[in-house]
């Protein structure tokens, strides 16, 4: 088995919050067979209803993979950061803040 460390972004396509939002909503809908908006809750029974293990592992992995698929890479986004988000919109905000933060921070 060959493991390959993720490389630094060379052609990141997530250049605005709107693009992050669009990419995430598409990825979430596909993975969880759902139709979500920014206001959909992650753990509420009126939302995705994910348990805490799923949020910090499965959903967190989806976030990292989606960012990676768009040619970008998260820098300071941990599973606990995602666990602190109530809604899909909160996750998009955190990811956009991470991607748009100045280098070296």
């Amino acid at each position, binding site marked *: 088995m060959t*493991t390959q*460390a993720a490389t630094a972004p060379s052609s990141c396509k997530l250049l605005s919050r709107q693009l992050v939002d669009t990419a995430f909503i598409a990825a979430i809908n596909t993975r969880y067979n759902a*139709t979500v908006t920014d206001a*959909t809750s992650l753990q509420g029974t*009126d939302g995705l209803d994910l348990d805490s293990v*799923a949020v910090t592992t499965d959903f*967190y992995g989806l976030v*990292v*993979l989606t960012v990676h698929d768009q040619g970008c890479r998260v820098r300071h986004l941990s599973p606990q950061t995602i666990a602190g988000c*109530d809604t899909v919109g909160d996750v998009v905000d955190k990811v956009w803040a991470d991607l748009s933060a100045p280098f070296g921070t």
Partner: protein
Amino acid sequence: MGIRAAFGCCTILLVVTSLFGATTDSGSASPQAIYQGALKEFKAAESDCGNQPTAGALTRLAKAAQALAEATTRLEARKAAPTAGPATRVVAGEHPVKTPGGETNNFFKMLSDHHLSLSESPGAGERNPARFSYSQDLRKGTTGAQFETDFYLNWDLDPGGIPTEFFLSNQSLITNALSLSAQGKLSSTDTQSTDAWRFRFEDQLVDIFPKGSFVLNASVKEESDRDFHLERVGTEIWTTITDTSLFIGGGPTKSWIVPQWRPYLGVDIGEYPNSDTLPADANSTVWLFGRLTGRLSFPTFAKELGFDNLYLYVDDNLRYLAETSRLFNYLKAGFNCGFTKDLGLGLEYSYGNDSPKFLEEHMVNVSLTLKF
């Protein structure tokens, strides 16, 4: 031992003070309100600049323009309409900013922002809340009343980044996360039997694949009775999977009853440095364990009654002690009624033999429940 006792006291103090934390619902401004505020400020700054274009006025205008741009972006994002495919399950879109009783609790949010989380036990998928209970020991009849707490406080050690991240393919990813935790199961009486402390240094590895994920949690653990007379030092490894198409770990549903469950398998290897007070059949280096947690939520019923959540749950732990060939089962089942996302009331029944001593327990309790 002094350090452990101090850490234990600090943990209890934190847990107790969190109970008395602020319970005001702060809510948050809507994107529309933020946009209106930004627009107002921009117009005022523009007017100032037109009247007298000083350096200060220009700086104010630049800041106002930036704030307006951000507010506009946020507003547009909120207005973006979802596209529903015919085969997809529709998720209730609007999660209210404010729910009855308040969902955005400042104090709990602050603790959460400091990378602390509180629940009843580690790895419990549904993260049942910590419990502060009035209990009745059913073995002792009318003399078995006591106060009891059951909590698991976890501190994320790597909030600022991802220590390792390997892409095995385009759709497979391994990440890990380090944390320290303290678990307490303490009662006001009978401290020599069923009480326990568990301190862990944990690492959680996750492999994500297209429709699910595999979790491996490894920890160095010290387990003891309440007064640290009996200690067990070792390592614990458990695994679980997430597949929302099978309701393992959740998944969106639109029904009156929402099921959710999670299986675990694991091994616990450890030694008792001093096992004088340990029952002979409980003295084993290797424990193999299986665990099954399940939950049935009633979201519609909860909403109609004005609660945040209502659910029934079960958490069954099965431990096989390899050297003594003993099998111990420990079952907890109950009902929880959440006033808010964080606070609630619960009724729990527990029966069986829990570590480290594996003495029989048969309890029922009424609890104030709390998680963040």
